């Protein structure tokens, strides 16, 4: 049977702007992936635990409140603690260019700027999912 890419689209922190996350979740579904959307106001602990339980291939974090430098690396750390270090972690939202090196150092593999084409995002996921875990 064909393997499905499983994705968790998550909103850590208190930010309630979920337009982008929901549009993305739906687009990923239309692209044939199995998508879990977290809903708003989730903690890094909840997100990491759910990612591991659901055995997702990718966690896509969205934050527009400016708390990304605190929240995104924490999700990565917790994933590693829970044995989910092979899960691809991506970020999006209102994230200044200057913060991108910091986030990448802390395990967020790629950060998408506002208005990044969804097609490109989907292609990125397809190209970078850690396929070895299934093979």
């Amino acid at each position, binding site marked *: 049977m064909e393997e*499905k890419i499983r994705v968790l689209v998550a909103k850590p922190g208190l930010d309630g702007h979920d337009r982008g996350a929901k549009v993305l979740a739906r687009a990923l579904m239309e*692209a044939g992936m199995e998508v879990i959307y977290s809903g708003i106001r989730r903690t890094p602990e909840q997100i990491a635990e*759910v990612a591991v339980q659901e055995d997702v291939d990718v966690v896509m974090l969205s934050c527009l409140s400016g708390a990304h430098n605190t929240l995104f690396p924490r999700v990565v750390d917790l994933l590693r603690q829970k044995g989910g270090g092979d899960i691809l972690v991506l970020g999006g939202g209102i994230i200044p260019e200057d913060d991108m090196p910091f986030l990448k150092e802390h395990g967020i593999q790629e950060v998408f700027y506002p208005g990044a084409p969804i097609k490109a995002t989907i292609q990125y996921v397809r190209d970078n999912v850690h396929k070895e875990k299934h093979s």
Partner: protein
Amino acid sequence: MDVQSDIRTGDTRAIARAITWIENADARGAALVHDIYRQTGRAYIVGITGSPGSGKSTLIARMAALLAAGGAKVGILAVDPSSPFSGGALLGDRIRMFDISLTHDVYMRSMGTRGSLGGLNRSTRMATRILDAAGFDWILIETVGAGQSEVDVHDVAYTTVVVLAPGMGDDIQAMKAGIMEIGDAFVINKADREGADRTLNQVESILHLSAAEGWNPPVLKVSAEQNAGVDELVAVIARHRVHLEEDGELDRIKVRMARLDVVEILKERLTDTMNTELERAATQAELEKVATRETDPYTVADMIVDKIWRGR
């Protein structure tokens, strides 16, 4: 990661990975079930079905929290429909139980139907065996909730709970044929809303027609959102369990399910064999002859069956 031994210790990552293998029909999944099957048979499996919008997910979250608070280990398998076009799925049940795993000893897994009909995913059955082997006391299975074709859950769960919401009287009429027969308990959820009593009466009058000796399914008013009546539902499930155990019915169900475990694998194996056979060039040529009416489908089907049985 040694999935097999880690599953026995209840390691979340190992359980999650094992279910992925099962879902992807990865050979490692089959090998794993082969190794752990002896440890299964202890968990009590409850199926929860009902229309979309009846609040199944919230109800399950409440049930799981209550059972876990009593010291039990609870596993949840929640199935959502996959898109027949893209094959993708929005697994929306999780959103209503997102925080449950941190506050309680609960494992939850969302599954897409991946083309299966009947409200479950074809891997749901084996996924329950994984959870069973991992030491879960209760396994709660949430079906898609598409309405009428939800009877499969009866083949996976020992107790089946049918969830309705006020105003779903018309649905009940439609469901009469299938779902009403499989329910061991009926829940009128969102009972704080208008019309709950009316729906309750509708359900009771339908059930009344088929009242019989033995277990008569109770109808409960619950508000999962307000956490009211969930304890009664859990008590009813426990009573049903005792009822099944006392007259030996549970053992009979387990025999039926063991058979279904085999049947399911057989179906998969046979389908694989059939598909392999269909791909062969020789078969393709025969199929073309069916299309041009040089032969008929029965002849070719019999020929393929013959080949499969005798060809080895």
